[in-house]
C-alpha cells in the first residue's frame, strides 16, 4: 500500500518555500485563496493515488476544528 511521504522529498526546501510565498505576491486574500485552491487541485491530480490523497486530507485536517467537531457530535 502506498503511504504519504512525510519525510523531506524536496531538494531545496528553503527555495521552494520562498517560491510558494512569492507566488502570492500582490494578491488580495481572496485571490490567494483562489491560487491555493488551484494549486491543491493540480497537485492532487498529479499524485493521483486515492490512498495517499485520503491520508493527506486526514493529516491536513488533524487537530483543526476539533472543539466544534465535538460539539457537532454532542448535538
Amino acid at each position: 500500500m502506498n503511504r504519504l511521504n512525510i519525510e523531506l522529498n524536496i531538494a531545496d526546501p528553503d527555495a521552494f518555500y520562498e517560491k510558494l510565498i512569492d507566488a502570492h505576491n500582490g494578491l488580495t486574500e481572496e485571490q490567494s485563496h483562489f491560487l491555493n485552491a488551484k494549486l491543491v487541485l493540480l497537485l492532487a491530480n498529479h499524485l493521483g493515488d486515492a490512498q495517499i490523497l485520503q491520508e493527506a486530507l486526514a493529516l491536513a485536517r488533524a487537530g483543526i476544528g476539533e472543539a466544534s467537531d465535538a460539539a457537532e457530535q454532542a448535538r
Partner: protein
Amino acid sequence: MQTDYQKMQFAYERAADHDATITALYPVVVIGAGPVGLSAAIDLAQQGIRTILVDNDDTLSSGSRAICFAKRTLEIFDRLGCGQEMLEKGVSWNVGKVFLQDELIYTFNLLPETGHARPAFINLQQYYVEGYLAERAMQTRHLQMRWKSTVTGVMQHDAYVELQVETPDGVYPLRAQYVIAADGARSALRNAMGLDSRGRTFKDRFLIADVKMKAPFPTERWFWFDPPFHRNQSVLLHRQPDNVWRIDFQLGWDADPVAEKQPEKVIPRVKALLGEDVEFELEWVSVYTFSCLRMDSFRHGRVLFAGDSAHGVSPFGARGANSGVQDADNLAWKLRMVLNGDAPAALLDTYASEREYAADENILNSTRATDFITPKSTVSRIFRDAALKLAKDCPFARRIVNSGRLSVPAVLSESPLNTPDDAADHFSGAMVPGAVCTDAPVKVEGRDDWFLNQSGGEFAGVYFCGPGDNIAQCTERLAELAKLAVPVRCLLVVPRGAAVSAVAGAIVVEDVEGMVTSRFDAQPATFYLLRPDQHICARRRGFDAAWVSAALNRAICLG
C-alpha cells in the same frame, strides 16, 4: 393533425366493481398513470398479467417537466412497443458543452462509439412520453385503465391488498395480490401507509422557462457557469421538439418563487440570453426547489413503491423519470414470475434491494452535481471556481467540473441474483454480471437488426459459435435450455458471413460487424445468461447445462 397531449382527456367509465356482490381479486393494481406506472402496467399486461391501472385524474402531464429520456429508457420503451414513436418525435442528442462566463471550457460526448440503436438521450416533453405510453396501454390486452379513480384507503391482508377507490360514482373496494405505488413524489399511498421518504432538501431555487422560438443553437446540452447574461448563477439550455427550448435559470435561495414566475420577470431573463431582438413565446414557466430522498424500503409486503414515490433526486443528470422507468423494468418480470408461481416472493425483495442500490447511486450523483452547481460554503465556491478556471487548459479538471452526471443504468454488481465469474475465465470489458446488456448491430434472417431487440421479456441464453461450428449441432447442445425451470430463449451468435440456416428452437444472430463478440469479450463457446430486463446475471467460457440451471435458479431465488 398532431394530437395535443396536454389537452387530451381520457374517458372515465364506471367500474363493474361498484356493483359487484363479491369483491374480485386482481393480480396487480398499479397506482399512477405517469411514465413509471404506465410502463409497469404495459410491461405486466404484455407478459399476460391482468393489470388495473388507476389514476386520480383524466389528463396527462401539463408542462414539459421531465424532458431528457436516456438510452436505457428508450430501450425499455422499445420492449414495450413505443420506443420508435418517442425517437421519431424526440430530439436526439449526444453532446454537451460547458461554458464558464463567455468561454467554452469543454465538450463531452455521452455516446462516443457507433453501433447502438438508440442515442444517449432524446429530449421529449413528458406529455408526449405519457401520451405514447397511454396509447400503447389502451391497445394492450389484459390492461384496464381507470381514470378519475383516487385511492383513499389501503389495508394489507395475508393474501391480498384491499384499496378503497373513490370515483365520481362513489367508493368501491379493489383487491389485488400486489399493488405498485407509482403515484409520484407526494405519494398518497405512501402517506396512507404512514411511510416517508427522507433525505436532504437543497437551498436553491431554479426557474424553468420553456420558450417557443426559431433559434440557431445546435441540438446539444449547454450549461453555463456565471454567464454574462445571468451573473453568479448557472443556466442550462436544452432543445425540445416543436421549436420549444428549455432554459433553467438558477435563482438562489432568496428569490421569490411567486414573483419570479411572472412574465415581466421571466422575459427579461430570457432576452438577456437570446438578445433583445429574438422573438419567442413563453410556453411554460415553473419555479422549483428540490430534494434528494428515498424510502428506507421499496417493498412493504404486497405493496411495491416505484419511481418518485420511492426516491427523489435533483434534476441535474436526468435521473428521475429515467430511474423510475428502470424500476418498472426491474419489477415487472419478477412480479410475473411470483404471480405465476415460478419464483418465491423473495424475488420481490431483490426488486427492492437492486433498485434501492440504484437510487443511492442516483442520489449520490445528483447530490454531488448539486453541491458543485450550488456551493454550500465560501471554500466550496473557491474550489468550484478553481476547477472551472483550470478546466480550459487542464484535461483533468474537466472531469472534476460537474454540471450533472447524466443518467446511465446502475450496474447491479452486488445483486444476489448474479452468479460470480469463474476467475479462470478472465473476462474483460464492461459487460460484468449485473450490467445491462450492450447493444450492437446484427443481422437476423438476413435483415439488419439490433442485438437488444432479440432479448428481453424472458430469460435469454446467448451462445457464441466459432467460425467452423455447425449451427445445427450447437442448437442441439443448447436444447437443454428448454428443460429449465422457466423458459430461456436461445440466441446463437455466429460470425459474419457464417453459413446461416434457420434452426428450430433458436434465434441465429449474425454478428455483422463483430461488435457483439468484442463488446461481450466473447470467444467460441462463451455463454451469457440475460435476465428478462436484459441485465447480465451469469457468464461462462463454455456451455454447461447444469451450470446454466444453477445460475437460472439463483436468478429467480429458487433453491
